[in-house]
């Protein structure tokens, strides 16, 4: 059983965490969905949501978010203690 009060653990890529002096590669965050988790992080790392979210809101096209290993959308539920990974997609040149 997962404890719904436990924070999720969000894993940020180095290229994202390095944009913000307040950010760390692993951060605890609360929220029932991926969107709420991102918003919670943004309260402690102002501007981070703008780097992850596009208009819509939607997850930026070349980023992927996984919750406990499963590809996720913004409305995907985030259980207490979940492992959330933000992964840059393979793109660019």
């Amino acid at each position, binding site marked *: 059983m997962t404890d719904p009060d436990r924070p999720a653990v969000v894993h940020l890529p180095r*290229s*994202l965490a390095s944009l913000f002096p307040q950010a760390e590669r692993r951060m605890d965050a609360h929220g029932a969905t991926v969107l709420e988790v991102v918003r919670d992080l943004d309260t402690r790392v102002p501007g981070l949501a703008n780097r992850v979210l596009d*208009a819509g809101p939607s997850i*930026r096209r070349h*980023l992927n978010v996984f919750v406990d290993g499963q590809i996720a959308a913004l409305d995907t539920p985030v259980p207490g203690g979940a492992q959330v990974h933000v992964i840059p*997609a393979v793109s*660019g040149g």
Partner: protein
Amino acid sequence: MTGRSLVLVGTPKGAFILESDAARRDWSIRGPLCDGWPVHDISVEPGTNALLAGAGSPWFGPAVWRSEDLGETWTHSSEGLTYGDDGPKVATVWNVTAGLDGIYAGVEPAGLFRSTDRGRTWTHVEGLTNHPSRPEWGPGAGGLILHTIVPHSSDTQRMWVGISAVGVFETRDGGASWQTRNKGVRAEFNPENRFPEFGQCVHKLVMASDGGELLYQQNHCGVYRSSDGGAQWEEITGDLPSDFGFVMTAHPRDPKTVWNIPLTSPEEGRLMPGGAAAVWRTHDGGETWIRSGEGLPQKDAYVGVLREAMAHDDRDPVGVYFGTSTGQLYASADEGRTWSRIADNLPPIWSVEALAVD
């Protein structure tokens, strides 16, 4: 020799800064800056000498970066840089220019944003997007981009912008309303109407140093001058070897001196003609043009120069700089008469700006 001379370079793999003293002979380089983000444009905020970089990451979206210590440290923000959740997604910032009443950012898809808090937050200048022609705007080869912003030198209510392939617009009421400013400019790709009200492919627009009415334009179809703030344009392509090109920069003190780099047509590669690199300049407002290739490769130089990749400083004599789409950066410390290469292995150069600090 005292003084610092900086050349700010934007590339798809970050920003770079070349630095010299007032003599501008020996240069050092630092970078990549802005975390290696694609940087379309770097400019300088007058008065503070803060550096502003317009950028867009394929992963993390658009942002304007700001440095208040000449590029040593940077912050970034895109708060408010959006057309809203129901609007088109902003891909990148193509131009960032400080005006008298704030900082302006031109983005893709084409639109204008303003910041009055040094780039921390942004507000959409809706008057331009609400122009009646907006439903008919079509992209150029580089996309539907607002790439040029020219604030008036003294009137906060006036500003010009350039959009490919839409044309030039001017506001005289601080951005609330805009008028097309394309009269006299050819649109050869539109044979049914070679002189439409809009749809011209402006490549670069610059203001002369005489106070705000004299403008110059490099267009997809010719080089132009306007002596009435863009109300009417007169072609000054004259004896330039091509009517195509991207860059143009105007002398900081002499309103009749402008530098330009003609390129072969898009169908012929957008390269310096004949494999010989050259910068052309006029000292009479475009009546006549002078070629300078001294110090530039004159054989087998198959290089192009992109829209934002030429600039000048305000020293006396003026320094002129340009970068190529293959990563070479050239400088002239004598107003474009002779040239030397100051960097050779940069990424493709998207933008060049110059700053003299004494």
